[in-house]
């Protein structure tokens, strides 16, 4: 699984480390040696018993030859500009917008294609 595809919300650090290690075809012992720790420490990270610090995580991923991007973004595709436009309206105008939309919906008719 590509490391970049993981969402922050579901980020499982232990699984991330395990996935990176397997991607690099390293044993836990080999990875431990590469980052100056013990095999049991790597095992605990992967099992979720201990959570690796962010700088340790970066070192582990580097040892596996990969990097992970950590950035924040909204996890939806909501058009916030549209929300701000509506927030700029008065409640009365927002209500009127609903009535207008209802009239437009009712005025719509299915298009019949001839020929």
């Amino acid at each position, binding site marked *: 699984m590509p490391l970049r595809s993981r969402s922050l919300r579901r980020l499982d650090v232990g699984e991330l480390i395990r996935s990176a290690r397997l991607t690099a075809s390293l044993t836990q012992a080999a990875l431990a040696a590469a980052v100056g720790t013990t095999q049991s420490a790597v095992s605990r990270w992967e099992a979720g018993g201990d959570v690796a610090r962010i700088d340790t995580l970066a070192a582990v991923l580097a040892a596996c030859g990969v990097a992970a991007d950590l950035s924040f973004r*909204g996890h*939806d*595709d*909501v*058009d*916030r500009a*549209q*929300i*701000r*436009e*509506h*927030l700029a*309206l008065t*409640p*009365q105008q*927002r*209500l*009127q*917008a*609903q*009535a207008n*939309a*209802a*009239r437009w*919906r*009712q005025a719509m008719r299915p298009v019949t294609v001839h020929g």
Partner: protein
Amino acid sequence: MTGPRPFDPQRLLRVLGAHGVEHVLIGGLAAALHGSPTTTNDADICPRPTSANFTRLARALVDLDARIRTDGEPEGLTFDRSGTFLASVALLNLVTDAGDLDIAVRPSGTAGYDELVRSAVTYELDETTVLVASLDDIIHSKESADRPRDRAVLPVLRALRDEIS
């Protein structure tokens, strides 16, 4: 009533207000009043469940020529528009001469009027004043209902909450 009438939320709210119906507006129209750009075809209200209020609501429903909304019957079905009847049902889906109106005594995920009114927001409109369920309560109710149409608007409502806070 002659065929479906366009949704006229201003008239719906005005008539409810004119009859002194104590209610909290919930659902999509409530979200729209908070600033959601989503559109809706109906109004959802949670009435205060008292005998006197159901009587006022019944009078408003007569004014709105409310009928039971049902598939295959665009005009709706007539029903007993009395306070006694309204007090006996928890949920009503109605068609009125100002569009569709849903009445829920205990909307999904809520304990009803007494709970919703505590965090409701008052909006002054041109012709009436309306109590609107808080955005948090609307989101919670939609999360509880968990229908596809509820799930579809939740990202927008959460983004709206982020924008407001």
